[in-house]
Each structure stands twice: as structure tokens, then as C-alpha cells.
């Protein structure tokens, strides 16, 4: 609902303004959100994926502000056994790579592994 409010879902005026108007504040709140992903149930994860596809991938360069956290949780999602969820994560990652560029994308992966090494475990 917060997303809906922020993104102006149902409000064509707000939608027209685009995510750029509030992208920076999204990055600000995101760390609180990401921390739930790892331990979330499958249906929540699916919703989560949708949320990312719908709101985050729409962001422009503002996404860089929360890229570390986003990639961090997505990498954890690669371990998922559910095909649908896995597919969703892979799609997001591909989309992200496309969005930020390969160098930035892989650079963030290396950075994430320094910052929170135990994400691989």
C-alpha cells in the first residue's frame, strides 16, 4: 500500500509524474523491506518479486541507491527451489543488468560479497 501511495497507483496524475519524484525516498525505505525477503514464504516472495518488477525496475538511476541491497536479496533468491520464484529472480537480475549495465551489475555483486559475505551460505 505504501508503494501504491508513493507511486500513485490509481492516480493518473501521480502516475504521470513517474517514479523519479519519489525514487530517492524509496531507496531510503528499501533496506527495511529487503531484510524480510530472505525468510519470507513462497507466496510472499512471489509478491515481492512482483513488487520489484513493478516498482523498482521502473526507477531510473535512483535504483543505484538501493542496488547493493536489492542484488543482495536477489542473490539469495537464486537458491530458491521453486521454479517460478527462481525464474522471477533471474528475470529481475537480467533486467537489472540491462538497466544498470554489466560492469555496475557485477561490481555490485563483488561489493555485496565483501559487505555481507555470508549471503552465499
Amino acid at each position: 500500500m505504501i508503494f501504491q501511495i508513493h507511486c500513485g497507483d490509481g492516480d493518473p496524475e501521480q502516475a504521470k509524474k513517474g517514479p523519479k519524484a519519489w525514487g530517492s525516498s524509496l531507496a531510503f525505505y528499501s533496506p527495511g523491506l529487503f531484510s524480510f525477503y530472505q525468510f519470507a514464504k513462497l507466496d510472499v516472495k512471489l509478491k515481492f518479486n512482483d513488487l520489484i518488477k513493478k516498482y523498482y525496475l521502473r526507477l531510473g538511476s535512483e535504483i543505484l541507491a538501493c542496488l547493493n541491497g536489492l542484488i543482495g536479496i536477489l542473490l539469495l533468491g537464486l537458491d530458491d527451489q521453486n521454479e517460478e520464484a527462481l525464474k522471477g529472480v533471474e528475470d529481475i537480475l537480467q533486467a537489472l543488468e540491462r538497466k544498470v549495465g554489466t560492469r555496475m551489475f557485477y561490481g555490485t555483486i563483488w561489493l555485496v560479497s565483501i559487505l555481507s559475505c555470508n549471503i552465499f551460505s
Partner: protein
Amino acid sequence: MIPSGLESFPIGKVYLNQDAYKVSNTEADTNEPRVSNVDSEKSITSDELLYHFYPQKSSLVVNALIQCLQDEYVFTQRCAFDFLSSHMPLKSDLLSFNEKVCLVEAGCCLLLKKNDSIIRRLYSWVIGHIKDKEGSDVFISVKNDVALQVFVKSMHNLFRGVPKDAKSANAPLQIVKTIFEDNEGLTDRLLPEIASVMVRYLETYKSGYEFSEELTSFGRKFLSSEKQLVLIWQALGSELSELMVEENYKKVLQTINLIKFFLTSYDSTKEKFASKSKYLKPIFARILMSMSSLSNNLVIMENTIPALRLISEILVILEKEAQLESFGLMAEGVKKFVTFYVQFLSLIMEGKYEKDEESWKYVEEAFSLATRNVVAIQVYVDSDREGADWLNRLVQCIEEPKMPGEVTLICIEGIISIYEKLASGISAYRCLQACIQKEGEIIAKLWDMIGQSPNDRKVVELIKRADFIMPVVLSSCVINKLLDDHPPRKVDAMNRFALFWKLAAEYFPLFVPFVSEPLCLFHMIDFLNHDHPLVRHSSKSWLAESTRHLDRILDPIISRLLKNSCEETCNKEVGQLVYTSPYDTRIAIDAFKRLRSILINNKTDLTNFMMNTPVNQDLVELYRKEKSRQMFDLLRERDTYLQLLLFLSLKFIRGQAAEKLGPQFVTENAAVNACGCEFLELILTNVEPSERAPEVAAWVIKPLLLGLQNTFVCKDSVMQVEILKLVRHIQFKCATQSRLYAENCIAIFGDPLYMGIIQSGLESDLSYVRSSYISYVKATLPLYTDFLGENIEFMINHIMKYLSNNLAKCSAVSGSKVEGEKCIANENDILQILGGVKAVIHHYFFEADAELEREDRIALQKLMNMPSGKKARVCVDRTRMSILENIGGLFINCQRIWKQPKPKVIKNFKLTHIGVLPFTNQNYSDTLDMYYKEQFSFALIEKEFTSYQQGIIAIVLPIIQRHPGNSEAVTIA
């Protein structure tokens, strides 16, 4: 910033499937990573790969991987290794050399955790390529393999860490140990590469850290196998070699220090590791060669000191090796070192070095080490060579008067070392000895340096070594100086000797100078009696200064005396000691003479020393070889010099020469006997404190009495008198109010031999022997009263009997020659005997009473529980009676006395005597009457009496006057 050539890279193209970008491992022939892109027709270059997939590689990717390797979860570590194996093999160029090293180092740290899967992955990543399909090693040298180079470098880095505790200090060694244990085949290749760094690490933390001890202990355990030690030695040697080729002498010095450290601290398995010299020799030869360059052509000597020290230490190890064969490198090394040394010596002789204290100290130390080494390395030089330039220069340097004392000393030390090597049987030094020739002058120079050099200790030490190795040269040199005819020079030489003596005792208390060649010492002692007062004074000063170490003076004399033994047969029961082969009597006489000189000149100190100092072990050993020691049970464990000297005196007093050895030796031996007596008397006279004299006397009483008895058997008239003098000395000079003294006297008088000895003495045909014994008896009369108790009567009876027998004998032969001159009995003899009789009578009739009242006798009585004065008086009275009864018999057979012309009878003063015919108590009155009537009815005028008759009158008259009641025997009409 995008690298050039990447502008056309399709941004946004997805490369998420990383397997597509794995570096191919199959193509071993190329180091270029091949990248394939399944999605794209266009393959990307390695630069593109790096740009897009490993951005900020050095800082980001490598750190991320290290982070993963160090993760707390094994799964992460495994993944990281899997990634490294698949995407970053060490042979690829994807990572730089240093990045690889960092990663491998991080990987190696995991070896400590001992997780098999991790260790397997690590080895697979780093050294997987050196194993073939069957798992056995494929030989690839470190030089040709980047992975191994990385591995080595990472191990180097491990040793460069700064440990904080014992665990972290041991970690690098533990890691290396695990690697070598798991991959034995790699030890040969990797250990030499890391040896230097590892030893340096051990050296850095050898001390001063709380973990140093633990690290050293772990290091020793790790490096305990011969194989590892050999590899390390090889590595250190080749490192030294390479550095020398590079002429990097700073590092050469560091490596030398490292070798020295390893040699002294780690390679402790000297006995076990016999083949070490094989590896040490090349190192040794290289150091020898580097000397000149190390010192920067002899300019900076302090740089060479560590190398010179190391040479010394290696030489010590190599010396133990049986085979000292030379080889090419070594011969060259020796040659270069000798050249270096000659140059060094030349510069010193030319005075090129500054004399300021700091730099000269280095020059001096370097020269000392170099000289020691140049002598020691001669063992590697062919023994057939001719001449040695360096040695000639060395001798020249010693002769050069302007040389500083330290340099001369070092040179002399070199020469002495050569003699020491020669003495230990090393043939290589034989030709060097021929080169020296002037050893006498060199030693004289050394001797002259006593008191002149600032380093007196060194001078004394060198003289000590010279005394051990060339005693004859040293002794003759000192004697030459001492025998200088010019008194001031002589005194100077003596003062030098005294100084040496003092310093030697101070610096080397266990060293006894001139033991093997003590002649110079003997000269010093002989100077105690020199004609020149200055010489005497110097010698006495020397003796006075040596009081604390008198053993150094006595030992050579005594040892010479003990060594100067001969074959002898002993009979303990009879007390006979007979020499069956000759010995050098001169030595014995001189020895006693010197001991006497010392004793006379330093009575108090010597007696104190003798009585309180245990005998040195060497002398005890010599003493144990003495066969005659069983005769005199004197010296025991920890006994003093006094006992030993008493033994020696007694031995030489008692020793008789067998007749077969000839009259000359017999005469010479008699002189030795007399010397022994004289010395023993001197000892007894000078015992300090005098209260201890009886104690000393007690040791010698029995042997002396036995000896005295033997002198009568052997008819040795000189010793009959001399030993008696000693006995007399013991009884009178060693007299104190002590129980011991009384016991001594009782021991003498109560000895079964005593009466026989007195009899033999009193009845001796020889006038001087007899007179000595009469004199002795006269002197001992008061002691009989004191110590004989009830036996006085018996003793006096016998003495009177022996005297009368002899009187008769003398009077019979008086004035005539009987079998040679020695039997001439003259007036004096008779008077002597009469004097003896008179003394006995006088003592018992006029002095004994007073004697019994003597205070000291009363004190002695109490001490010894002797008979009281009353009992003693009874004994004396009985003795008197006995004398009176026997007095007539005294003059039996005294024909000579009575055959004088009859004197005129004057007035009423008549003297009658019995004599001429034997008489008995029964016919006593008749006999008296008969003689009175027939022969002796004449009156004697005093002035007309013969001297004998006067003597008899002097004896008898007082008795008659005092004891008229007992004058039946002697009547005055």
C-alpha cells in the same frame, strides 16, 4: 572510465550465465584466458572481461574473494575455491602475480583449520596441474611454473607477517610443515626457495619476544631431518653465491649473519649430520673469497668481522671431519683469503689505519680473527708447498719494533697456534714450522712484553700456551734473561718473572707455570742465596708476593723429586728401603736445598701453607706411584703438603743404596740422606704455631726410630748421629705442655727399639757417634724421671752398664791404634764417658729431688695420670741405690786409668778404688780391702792426679760427701 576498445561493448547485453565465461583449463599451451559467449556471436577479449565482470579487480574482486576465503562458513570457503579453480586458475593472466599471491596466501591460512575438503580444493587450485591423471607428481621446476612461483611468494609473505602471540608466530611454520607433509615431492623444490626467508623469520624472533622460546622449539622440531637441513644449507649457500655475483655486499653480510645464526642455533645435530661439511665447505670457500670485497678493499674492516667470525665457527665444525681434502673452490678460496691477509698485514705494517680508538678497535679485532683463520685454513693447503709469504710477513711484523703491542701479540698468537696445530699432529703445518725458524726470538719478544702491553692478560695467556706447547724454548729464553751477568738487567728479568708469576696466578689460578721445564723457576729460588744483595732482595720479594700460591712454586720441585724415583725394595717390617737402581742424587739434593731456601726465607707463610693446603691432585697421582709410600703411612685423601714433604724427607732419609751400585752412588746417596735429615729438622723447627709441633713429630717418630736402628745395621755413622739429632729435636724443641708431647716422649722411650739404639750408640767404636749418644743421654736424664716411671732403674742400670763396658774398652786400647784410625781411643773418649757417668750420678744424687718438685712436671703428671711425686721419689731412690751398688763395677777393666804412675801419698787424703778384677757383692768388702792394701793404698794429691782420676774424683767425691752412709764402695781414708 571505459578502457579503450570497449566503447562498442553492448551495454545491457546479459552475461549472467557465468559458466560461459569460465577460463578454459583444457588448453594448457596458452596462458590467454579464452572467453566464449554463447549468447553472442561476438567473443569478448580479456580486457572486456576484466572491465565488465571484474571491475576494480585489485581492490574489489580480490578483496571479495579473500573475504569469502576467510568466511566463517566452510561452504563459503569451498565455493570460493571452486570459483577460483574454475574462473581464476593460477596459470591464467586474469589476475596479476601479486593478486594471485594474495589469494594463495589467504588460501594457505586455511591449512591451519585442517578441513580436508578445503585443503583438497586449495591444492587442486594451486598445484593441481603438477599432478598427472594418476595423481603422481610431474616434475615442473619453480622457475618454469608461475603457480609454483606464486605459491613460493605467498609462503614468503606468510613469513613476513608480524606475529602477536605464540600461535600466530608458529602459524607460518605450521602451514609450511603441512604443505610439505601433504606434498613430499614438493619439498625439494619449495624448501630451498623459502629457506632464506624462513631462517630470517626465525632469526628475527629468536629472542626478546614472549613467544621466542616456543617458536625456536617448534622450528627445531620442524627442521630436525637431515634432508631439510641439507636443503636449507644448499639454499643459503647458493643465495650467498648469487649475492656475491651481484656484488651486493650489504646483503652478503646479512646472509652471512643468517648462516651464522642457523649454524649456531638450529643445526645442533652436529654429530648426527656427518655430511654437513659437504654443504658447509662451498659456503666456507665463498666467504673466504669474498673477504677482500667485503672489506671494500680493506677500507672498512668492521664489515668483515661477521664473516671472519663465521669462518672461525665453520672451521671448528669442519675440523671435526675426518676428511679434510681440498677441492677446487676451497683451494681458490684459501688463496684469495691469504692474499687478502697479506694485503691487510702490509697495510697495518705501513700504518695506514687510523689510530683513533673506535676504528682501530675494528681493525684489531678483524686482524685477530683473520690471523686465527689464516692459520686454521692452512690445513686445506697442500702440505708439499714451499714457503709461505704470509708467514714471513707475520714474523717480520713481530720483529718490527714500531708495531703496536696488540698487533705483535696477535702475530705471536698466530705463530703459537701453528705450533699447537703441529703438536696435534696435523702434517700440513710441518713446512710452516720450517719457515718460522726464529721461535726463540719470538718467545723472547713475548716475554719482554710482560708489563709493557696494555693487555697483560693476553700476554700471560700466550705464555701459558707457549709453556704448554714449547716449554723448552720458553724456559731457555727465560733462563737466558735471568742469567744475565749485569745485575740491573738480571734484576729487571727477575722482576719480570715475578710479575708474570703474579699475573698468571691472578688470571689462570689452575695453571702452574713451567711444570715440565721448571729450571727457570729453580733459578729464581736459587737467587734467594745469591751473592748480590739486589738479586737476593728481588728473589725474596717475589717469594713474599707468591705466598698465596706457594703450590705453584712447590709443585714443580716436589713433582721433580717424585719423578726422580728409581727401583727400590721395601721391607716394612724391618724398615729397610734399598735402592736397587741409581737415581739422580743431584736433583734430590737441589730440591731439598731449594725447599730449605724457601722455608728459611718465608717461614711463617710456608709452614702455614704446608699445614693447611691439600696436595694438588697431580702430585697425589705421582705419590700413588711411589712404592715406598707403604712404609710411611702418611698421606691420605685431602692431606696437606706437610704430610707429603714429611714423606719425602723420610723416604730420602731412610733410602739406602745397594752396594752393587758402587761406592760413588753410595756416597752421593748418603749426602741425600743428610739433606733429608736437615730438611726434616727444619720443618720440625718451624712448625707454626709451635703448639702443633708435637702433632707433626708424632707422624715421624716411628719411621725415625726404625731408620736409626737401620743405620747401625748398615754402619752408617753419619746418619746414626743425624737421626739421633732429629729424635733429640723432637724431644726438646717440639716440647710443649701438651698431652701429645708427653705421648711422643713415651712413644720414643717405650719403643722396643729404643734401648737397642742407645746401646749401639753408647758402645759405638766411633768417638763422635759415642759422644753424641752420651750427650743425648745426658740431656734426656730429666725426661727419664718424667716419663719412664718405674722403668728408670732398669734404664739407668743399662746405661751405666754400657758406659762402663765402653769405658773399659776405651781404657784398654787408649793410646794405641787398633785397626785403623777410627778406633783410636784417647783421653777425650774416656773423659766423655766419665762425663756421662758423672752426669747420671749428678742428676740422680743432686738434681732429681728438685726435678720432682718442678711445677711443669706436676702439671704434666696431672695431664698424663703419671705416678705421683711420692712414687717417683721411690723410683729415684731405688735408682740411686742401684747406682751406688754398681758404681764400683763402672771402673772394672779400666787398666789404663790405674796404670798411671803412682802419685805420692800426701797427708791423709787417700782415695781407694775398686777395679781391675771383677767382683761380686759377696766379696765386695774383701775385694775393697785387697785393693786398698795391695794396689791403691796411696794418697793422691789433687794436682798430681791424671785427668781420668780427676774425673773419677769429681764423680765420686760429692757422693761420698753427701751420702757417707753408702760409701762402702768408695772410701776416703
